[in-house]
């Protein structure tokens, strides 16, 4: 039986059978880029968001204030430019630009990862900034009031809560990245969309190949969104708590009495 004699389902099965390794490789590449770049994007986003929400220290001089202001300006430009232009063009710009201007050949993987991470970072920066601003100022005051430094306050109290609040947005970004890596086919990255084009080009079965590839994309994104929900649940901890009973006494045994000189109270 030739392809032209098959029906829709037979063609889909044929594609899956014949191209399973390519499809699997394409899907793996897509997932690898999406996951790595979402994580790197988060790191960039947190770094940028942290700087964007930093207030100059009361006692810092005019030079320090100026530097902070300049850095914030540069970061704002980064965010606006990378949010405001298509990733497909950014890919072409960076990939061909580095080759032409600097004579550097980035290579498929590093180019793909740089482009998607930087792009995700631009979106995440705004998300993180919003996440930090959404935390009740009382949390910061509570932390400062027991002597935490600005840095400790951010790392121990504000960022963990912001991270939890923006998890849905991080999930969104991951899913967008899974789909949007397809624009990397412009620089020849062999990901899932590239595989689709190869198959459909070889067999002239666009409809069936598209259906198969869409199903794979959907499985990937759906699995990720479920996984992220589960992670969110884990972050929240159990809905109920156990009352600590007798054993807490064991916990306090051997406790040292409080030193009056260092500010003991009781």
């Amino acid at each position, binding site marked *: 039986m030739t392809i032209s004699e098959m029906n829709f389902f037979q063609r889909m099965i044929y594609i899956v059978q014949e191209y399973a390794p390519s499809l699997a490789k394409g899907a793996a590449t897509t997932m690898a880029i999406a996951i790595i770049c979402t994580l790197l994007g988060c790191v960039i986003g947190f770094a940028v968001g942290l700087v964007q929400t930093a207030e100059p220290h009361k006692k810092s001089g005019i030079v320090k204030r100026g530097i902070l202001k300049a850095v914030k300006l540069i970061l704002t430009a980064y965010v606006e430019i990378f949010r405001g232009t298509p990733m497909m063009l950014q890919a072409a710009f960076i990939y061909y630009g580095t080759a032409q201007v600097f004579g550097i050949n980035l290579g498929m993987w590093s180019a793909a990862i740089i482009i998607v991470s930087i792009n995700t970072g631009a979106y995440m920066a705004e998300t993180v900034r919003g996440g930090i601003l959404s935390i009740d100022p009382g949390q910061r005051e509570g932390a400062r009031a*027991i*002597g935490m430094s600005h840095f*400790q306050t951010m790392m121990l*109290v504000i960022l963990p809560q912001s991270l939890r609040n923006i998890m849905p947005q991080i999930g969104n970004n991951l899913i967008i990245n899974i789909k949007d890596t397809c624009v990397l086919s412009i620089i020849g990255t062999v990901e899932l969309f590239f595989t689709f084009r190869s198959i459909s080009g070889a067999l002239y079965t666009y409809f069936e190949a598209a259906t198969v590839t869409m199903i794979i994309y959907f499985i990937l994104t759906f699995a990720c969104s479920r996984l992220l929900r589960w992670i969110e649940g884990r972050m929240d901890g159990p809905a109920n*708590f156990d*009352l600590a009973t007798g054993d807490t006494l064991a*916990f306090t045994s051997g406790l*040292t009495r409080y030193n009056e000189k260092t500010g003991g*109270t009781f």
Partner: protein
Amino acid sequence: MEEILKIEHLEKSFGSNEVLRDIDFSVNKGDVISIIGSSGSGKSTLLRCINMLEEASGGRILYHGQNILDGSVDEDQYRTKVGMVFQSFNLFNNFNVLKNCTVGQTHVLKRSKEEANANAMEFLKKVGMDQYINAKPRQLSGGQKQRVAIARALAMSPEVLLFDEPTSALDPEMVGEVLDVMKDLAKSGMTMLVVTHEMAFARDISTRVVFMADGKIEEEGSPQQIFHNPVSERTKDFLSRFMENS
């Protein structure tokens, strides 16, 4: 008597709004000072200046004789000595009760985990919250949150505790449990500076009462004097209005 804090000519303005003017008073070891006064008189701002959450615009705050406003004192170290309990509790939402009471000890005071845990448990027991160490703040009632917040502040071994209307955000049936904890604290000799609308607490528990009006200390004295023989007309006025309302 050992003087812990001395406030001299303290001023604070927000823009052109003068919120504190020429505040003078001192806090000695073992003092339980109640600060009373009508809404907007600057009570919270005063506490926040003492805790350096707001930057004073003028005057001096001497901590054991050293002016904390001239930059010679490490702000974070100072804050561990002058704890604060807020009207809105401000417990860390991402930590359970025990971690709320240990995180400052381990990260700021660099105590070992064991010492911090033992210390936290001692104070959680004092405030009757030792059974709730695994709970997250969102799982607690207001009164329970405030008692944990007090334990958190105490666990830092402060010399003075500042309270800013610690019972104002609570349902009436929970006010008592927090006031009881504060009474015990006062009796144990803790030095406290309490902004409050609980006149019974001010009258019966405090060693001194400060009445503030329009950003100034209008009158200061023993509870006996303020509540029974106030000198200033404004004090009389405020107290009579208060007694009528309650």
